[in-house]
C-alpha cells in the first residue's frame, strides 16, 4: 500500500513538472511578444516598439529562457523578489507563481483570494449532483423496465445532449433576468453574509448540479441494477429483510463504490474550471479570472490557473486510486 502511494505520488509529480515546464516554454516562445497585452494596457492601446522592448527587458524576456525558467521554478519553492522598474521590487513569497501583469500582485495570493468562490460553487453543485443523481438512479433501478424508468433515462439523455453553456445561459436568462424567480446570482463570502451567500449561489448550484446529475442517474441506475442482481442480495431477501433495507443497506452500499470514485474525478474538474457557470452567473472565481487574464494576455495568471486545475485533477486521481482500495475490499493494490 505504502509503495503504491509513493509510486502514484511520483508519477503525479512527474506530470506536474512536465506541465510547469511546457506551459512556461509555450508562453515564452508562443506569442510574438509575451508582453504585448501588458504594453497595450499600460499605453491605452498605443503600444510603441520602444516601450515594448523596455517591458521585455524589465520582465526578463531578453535573458536566456532556461535561466528564467530556473528563476520561476526556484520561486515556487523559495519565493523571490521580482523587479518591476529600475528600482521597484515586488516581494513574491513562496510559492511564487509570478506577478499578474494587470495588478502586479503575486498570482498565488489572488488565487487564494478567489478560491472560496469556486469552492463554494463546486461543493454546492456536488451536493446536488449526488443527491439528485443517486436518488433518481436508485429509484429508477428499483422500478426497472417501467414507464417511469424509461422516461427518466430518456429525459436524462435528452438533457445531457444540450450543450451546458446553452443550458446555463437559458436558465440564467429565464429564471434570473426575465422572471426573477430566483434571487440574483452572485457571490458573497459565507463569513460576510450566509443568507446572501446561499441565495446568490442557489441558481448556479441548480444549473451546474442538475445538468451534471444526469450522468449520475444513469450511472447509479446501472450500478444499482448490477448490485441488486448479486447473490448476497437474494440471501438478504431470503432471510426476510425489508425491501428498503435490502436496497439501501445492502445494495446501495456496494453500488456506491464506483460512483464515489468517478465522483472524485468529476469534483476535481468542477474545482478546476467552472468557467461557463462563473461567466454566465457573474461569480468572481478562478475560471472567470483565467478567462479575463486570457483576454488581456496576462500570462502569469493564465499559467497559474491552468496549473491549479492540473494539480487538483492529479491530486483527485491519486486520492481516488487510494480510496478505491479502501472502499472495495475486493481490490488489492500492489
Amino acid at each position, binding site marked *: 500500500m505504502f509503495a503504491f502511494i509513493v509510486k502514484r505520488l511520483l508519477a503525479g509529480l512527474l506530470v506536474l513538472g512536465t506541465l510547469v515546464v511546457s506551459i512556461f516554454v509555450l508562453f515564452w516562445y508562443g506569442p510574438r511578444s509575451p508582453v504585448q497585452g501588458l504594453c497595450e494596457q499600460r499605453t491605452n492601446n498605443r503600444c510603441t516598439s520602444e516601450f515594448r522592448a523596455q517591458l521585455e527587458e524589465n520582465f526578463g524576456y531578453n535573458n536566456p529562457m532556461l535561466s528564467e525558467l530556473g528563476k520561476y521554478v526556484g520561486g515556487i519553492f523559495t519565493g523571490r523578489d521580482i523587479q518591476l522598474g529600475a528600482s521597484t521590487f515586488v516581494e513574491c513569497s513562496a510559492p511564487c507563481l509570478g506577478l499578474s501583469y494587470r495588478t502586479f500582485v503575486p498570482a498565488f495570493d489572488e488565487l487564494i483570494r478567489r478560491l472560496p468562490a469556486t469552492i463554494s460553487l463546486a461543493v454546492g453543485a456536488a451536493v446536488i449532483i449526488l443527491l439528485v443523481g443517486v436518488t433518481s438512479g436508485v429509484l429508477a433501478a428499483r422500478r426497472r423496465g417501467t414507464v417511469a424508468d424509461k422516461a427518466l433515462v430518456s429525459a436524462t439523455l435528452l438533457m445531457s*445532449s*444540450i450543450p451546458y453553456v446553452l443550458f446555463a445561459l437559458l436558465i440564467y436568462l429565464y429564471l434570473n433576468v426575465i422572471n426573477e424567480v430566483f434571487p440574483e446570482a452572485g457571490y458573497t463570502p459565507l463569513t460576510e453574509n450566509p443568507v446572501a451567500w446561499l441565495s446568490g449561489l442557489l441558481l448556479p448550484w441548480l444549473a451546474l448540479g442538475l445538468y451534471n446529475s444526469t450522468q449520475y442517474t444513469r450511472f447509479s441506475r446501472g450500478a444499482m441494477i448490477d448490485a441488486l442482481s448479486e447473490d448476497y442480495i437474494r440471501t438478504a431477501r431470503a432471510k426476510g429483510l425489508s425491501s428498503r433495507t435490502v436496497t439501501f443497506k445492502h445494495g446501495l452500499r456496494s453500488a456506491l463504490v464506483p460512483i464515489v470514485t468517478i465522483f472524485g474525478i468529476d469534483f476535481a474538474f468542477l474545482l478546476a474550471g467552472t468557467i461557463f457557470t462563473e461567466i454566465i452567473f457573474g461569480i468572481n472565481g478562478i475560471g472567470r479570472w483565467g478567462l479575463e487574464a486570457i483576454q488581456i494576455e496576462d500570462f502569469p495568471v493564465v499559467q497559474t490557473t491552468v496549473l491549479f*486545475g492540473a494539480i487538483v485533477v492529479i491530486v483527485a486521481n491519486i486520492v481516488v486510486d487510494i480510496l478505491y482500495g479502501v472502499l472495495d475490499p475486493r481490490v488489492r493494490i500492489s
Partner: protein
Amino acid sequence: MTLPQAEVQTESTAAPGAPKKAPKAIAGKSPTRIAFDRLRRDWLAMASLVVVLGFAVIAVFAGQIASLLGVSLETPLASERINLISQLPLEGPPFGGYDPEHPFGVAPRVGTDNLAVWLYGARTSMIIASTAAVLSTVVGVIVGLLAGYLGGVVDRVLMFVTDLFLTIPFLLAALALAPILSDRFGTNPERLGEVQFYSVIAVLVIFGWMTMARLIRGEVLSLREREFIQAARAIGVPTHRILRKEILPNLVAPIVVAFSLALPAYVAAEAGLSYLGIGVTDRPSWGQTVAGAVTWFDVYPQYLWQPVIGIVLLVIALNLLGDAIRDALDPKTRR
C-alpha cells in the same frame, strides 16, 4: 438510449459466428449487415439520421439555399432595416409579424439577415466539428495502435503524454492556446480570420484525441494476444502490415461509435468556445450569434433562439444517432 426492440426469432438465430451450414430458411448475414438492418428498423435512429442529413445538406449548399430563399449575408445599409435609435429591426420580429423578405428577421444593430447567418453558421459549425472529429480520430487511433501493439517504452511514453493532456483543464488551456496560435500564424491581417478558423480546429484536436487513444489501446491490448495475430506474427508479417490489415479492420466498430459520439461533442465545444470569445470572426457561426444575442435577449429573444435551436437539434440528433449506432454494432444488446 433507443431501447432496441426485440428482434424477430429467425433473425437472432443467424448469429455472426453461426456455422455456415445453418438450415436453409435462415440467411447468413455478416455482422455489418445485421447492424445495418437493426439500424434501419430503429425509427429514432432513422429520424435522427434525417435531421443530421438535413443539416449536412444545409452546410454544403448554404449559399444556394440562401439565394433560393432570397436572403444574403450582404447588408446594403443598416439604416434601411434598423431603427437607428433603438437599434432594433424596423420590420419583422421582435415587434412586427412575419417579414417575407427576411423569414427569421434581421439582426439588431447591424441588420444582417438572420436566416442567411443561420445557414452559413450551420456550415461553419459542421465543418469545424467534422474536421476536428476526423483529425482527432486519426491521431487517437495512431497513438492507441502504437501504444497498444508495441507496448514497452513506446506504450509508457505515449500513455504518459495521454495522461498529461487529460489532466490539463480543457477550457482554460484551449482558451489560452487559441489566441497564441492566431497571434503566431496570423501575421497577415487579411488572413487572420482563416488562421482563427484553423486554430479552433487545432485546439479541439489537441485536447480531444486522448479518449480515442485510450479506447483503441485497450482494444489492441486484447486483440494482439489473439491467435490470428500470433499466427500473422509467426509467419513473419511486418508490423505495419499487421496493424493495417489484421488489427485495424477489427477496430472499425469502436472507431465508428467513438467518432459518431465525438461529433456532437465538438459541435457543442465550438459553440462554447465562441461564446467565450475564442472562435471564428470572419464568417458567421452559431456560437458567435449566441454570444451576440445575449445582450438583446430581453427585447429580442427570437434572435437568441435561432442559433440555440440549431445547436440543440443538431447535437441531440447526432447523439441519438451515435447511441443507435453503438447499440446496433454491439452484439450484446441483441435479444
